[in-house]
């Protein structure tokens, strides 16, 4: 996999140009705060312990998440100790290759369904794909050491050395049919030693365009059973008395804990206080004639759900470079990839302006009908009104336009199409958008920036 200093330079320029605007790439662990409107991965870099280990203090927490159809769903997840609000899914751990990682898990007392820990007897964390994970404290469970809620202040410490760069998930290792369904999972990224601008050794990407898409699905009836039982003061096994995983029938499908259209709300959207992670994917188009070598966006798929999901990116065929945190010997192209439960993939996404329509307003070889003769579904559209990238025209007077600067939008979605609904409402669920912005512009010799109108 070729690497050129020219690519690296381009990445650095791109970072410099976007600095400030998309600084959340290296933001802190707390989803609270006034982060800029972006959807790039929010890294929780942990804290550095006195012995040099990267340390995360997580607690099992419960709370509520919102669905776009107006429903709220009771859920469990992992949240950083000290964070006032429960978050879903758990924080995204970003680690550099070679670091020693130490994760301390506690399960505070279950106070009510808005604060405190989860009403489960025990809980734990598994780190699939990590080698040599040690677990100390707590009680012995089937798969790992577990936190015992009957022991006040009980904790388990998990430790491993981040040896293989890639995309991973972490998840509960306890009563997984319940706890993973309830939301006990999160993303884990290990960057290669060569630097955070690379997915694997020598695979550079545009660091301002790095995305993590965690898939999951839920049967709200099961969540309601747990919610009702815990409200009635039941804990431990009793809370599951009416929970029947065999009856599971998924109704909500999520990316980063949100269903479309919430998925494309920015990171830390105030309207989604317990679902901090956005899923809008962006890329700057590459103009093959402009002399600027646009690096691809890096997209990390992780399926934390219990079912397999065939994920279809519109707009271009993507390049698969790794599976389950292990690079492929050569890249494979795909326009749909079924992501099995628990599986991760790393993909490079780029969009080439092959028609050279952008910017110059060159006509398409066919005539698009007058827009008044067409239908814009729901009276609103992401369409710019112009076939050319970076061009904008008025839509009919009754149609609301979401276009900022003539950018393109494509849907990326599960192609099991009953999964892109919110219960029974279409254009929802496991769906996000890919926003293709016009190519970078050379503002002065050798300095390239995104089109100002598109920021």
């Amino acid at each position, binding site marked *: 996999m070729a690497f050129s200093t020219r690519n690296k330079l381009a990445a650095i320029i791109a970072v410099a140009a976007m600095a400030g605007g998309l600084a959340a790439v290296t933001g802190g662990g707390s989803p609270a705060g006034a982060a800029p409107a972006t959807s790039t991965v929010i890294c929780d870099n942990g804290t550095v312990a006195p012995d040099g280990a990267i340390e995360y203090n997580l607690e099992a927490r419960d709370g509520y998440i919102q669905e776009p159809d107006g429903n709220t769903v009771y859920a469990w997840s992992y949240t950083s100790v000290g964070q006032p609000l429960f978050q879903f899914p758990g924080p995204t751990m970003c680690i550099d290759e070679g670091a020693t990682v130490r994760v301390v898990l506690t399960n505070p007392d279950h106070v009510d369904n808005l604060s405190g820990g989860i009403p489960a007897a025990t809980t734990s964390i598994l780190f699939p794909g990590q080698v040599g994970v040690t677990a100390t404290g707590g009680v012995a469970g089937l798969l790992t050491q577990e936190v015992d809620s009957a022991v006040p202040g009980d904790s388990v410490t998990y430790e491993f050395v981040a040896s293989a760069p890639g995309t991973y998930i972490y998840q509960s290792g306890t009563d997984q049919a319940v706890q993973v369904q309830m939301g006990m999972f999160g993303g884990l990224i290990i960057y290669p030693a060569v630097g955070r601008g690379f997915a694997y050794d020598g695979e550079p990407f545009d660091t301002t365009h790095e995305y993590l898409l965690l898939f999951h699905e839920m049967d709200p009836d099961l969540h309601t059973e747990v919610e009702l039982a815990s409200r009635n003061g039941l804990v431990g096994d009793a809370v599951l008395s009416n929970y029947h995983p065999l009856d599971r029938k998924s109704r909500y499908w999520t990316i980063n804990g949100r269903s479309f259209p919430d998925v494309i709300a920015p990171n830390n959207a105030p309207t989604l206080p317990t679902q901090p992670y956005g899923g809008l994917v962006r890329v700057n188009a*590459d103009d093959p004639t402009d002399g600027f070598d646009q690096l691809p966006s890096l997209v990390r798929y992780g399926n934390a759900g219990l079912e397999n999901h065939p994920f*279809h990116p519109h707009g*271009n065929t993507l390049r698969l470079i790794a599976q389950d945190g292990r690079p492929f010997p050569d890249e494979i*192209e795909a326009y749909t990839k079924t992501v099995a439960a628990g599986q991760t993939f790393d993909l490079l996404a780029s969009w*080439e302006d092959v028609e050279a329509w952008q910017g110059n307003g060159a006509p398409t070889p*066919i005539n698009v*009908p007058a827009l008044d003769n*067409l239908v814009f*579904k729901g009276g609103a559209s992401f369409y710019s009104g112009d076939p050319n990238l970076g061009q904008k025209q008025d839509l009919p007077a009754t149609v609301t336009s979401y276009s900022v600067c003539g950018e393109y939008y494509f849907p990326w979605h599960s192609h099991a199409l009953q999964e892109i609904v919110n219960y029974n409402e*279409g254009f929802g669920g496991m769906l996000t958008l890919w926003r293709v912005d016009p190519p970078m512009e050379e503002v002065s010799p050798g300095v390239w920036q995104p089109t100002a109108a598109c920021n």
Partner: protein
Amino acid sequence: MQPEPKPGIGRRDFLRRGAIATVVTGAGLAAGRSLMTPAGAAGGAGLPSAALFPPSNAVDFPTIASIRLMTTDGHISFPGRRHSSKPVYAFGFRAVDDSRLVADGGELNANPGDLMEKYRGHVMHSAPTLIAMEGVEFAIVVTNLGFRFRPDLDDSHTLHWHGFRNATAVFDGVPELSAAVPPGRDLPYFFDPKLPGAPGQPKGSAGGYMYHCHFEDVEHVQMGMSGIAFIEPRDMWFFPDGTPRAVRNKVAYNPTPAGIDTSFDREFALLANEIDYRPHDNLETLQLFTWSDYAPQYRTFNGRAYPDTVVPQITPAEQSASYQELLQMPAVPTTPDEEAEAEMLWQQNSSLVQAREGDRVLIRLSNLGYEIHSVEVVGVNDMRVVANDASLLVGKDGTNDLTYLSRRMEIGPGEARDAIFTAPAYVEARAEIDTLASRMGKQRKFCRYLIKSRNTHRLNNNGQIYPDGPSYAGAKGTYGGMVTELWVYPTLADAPGLGQDGLPDQITVNETFPTLVVPAGQV
């Protein structure tokens, strides 16, 4: 205004025999197939600067290679849900029967209003197979004819070419992100399948794709608006130096330094899908459906459930002859086979695979259902999967052969695989008389093999096997649903006595022999 056809670009024969639609036509090759001028010369310069579509709906047809797909509703047939009892309500795409310009006596650029009377209510499922050529720009004009059986619905439609590289938003067919076609209107979609080496496209565009409507997608796709699309590789029609070939070079992909052999003798396309008749019934009876309840009763290849899958291809002529009689069909059932053929009038795409022993058979499998399927050719152990999602399985620089041998193709919704296998043995001891050939006065025997889903709990027709009585053409086994058959014939040298009416050369994808004509008077 009606633009003049561009010189050298004919529009005849867009609809090839067997309801296979092509977007590439013209004059000239020995194979009965012809080429447009190479990319670059076809579009752009020299086009008349026609006005935007006027509200009068007069169609300003593109002057590049074009095909017209109409959208409408109708009824389709499955075992237990026959036209004579309770057919399944469906939406779909269909092509015009005569893809010539109106000036030449065809319907390519006819006004939508003139097409409604003839075509509205006569759906096709699965949709016509589209075949384009790498390096040749083309347009697909979508005309919304409205619904005949739910005239109160004003659903718009779109066309999404699933998997097209470097797509343009306005032609990607997602109604929330572009525009949709209301009843009575047209929208042309422009496509430019780039040649290998185009920016960002080292492998070019050749391969197996699919297309479907994206308007209210979970509903319209399940209702039947799905089909297969191909882009033929440049190497099929041109030598590497750019000289046109006199004979079609049967290869699925362009050559690479890795030397992967994608040559084939016969090619077949299978679109995996499922039918949950509840939303179909609900739509027909003005009820809603909760889509997360999706749980299909039929699994299909090319829009049919076994044993219907082995009914031969239905031709446009057969369909054209029966518009007025659709609802009475089948009027004069004679034999179970003929009845089954009449039932498939609006599900024209056969899945019957016929080959001679030793032939290299190319199967192009794609999936527009909502379930993951595992498809196998029973008796074939070494099937080579050569492509994934219209991308030859070769590494980044073209030197690593990433193809693999497998006994099955596992395929998720929206995915595509191309696989090549050698047709297994013709064994005289278990050969059967080809009754289809007998009806055409020909003598031939074959050995029967199954191509089917391995998810055998799904291989039934709403819980039954042949609810309508005897199976088609002696179809075997206790299966329904996502099953079809491979009929292996002897080589001419091995069986001169039985093979004199041997399989003809295959001209189009899925072309099976014999193509039966539904007897006159039956429909």
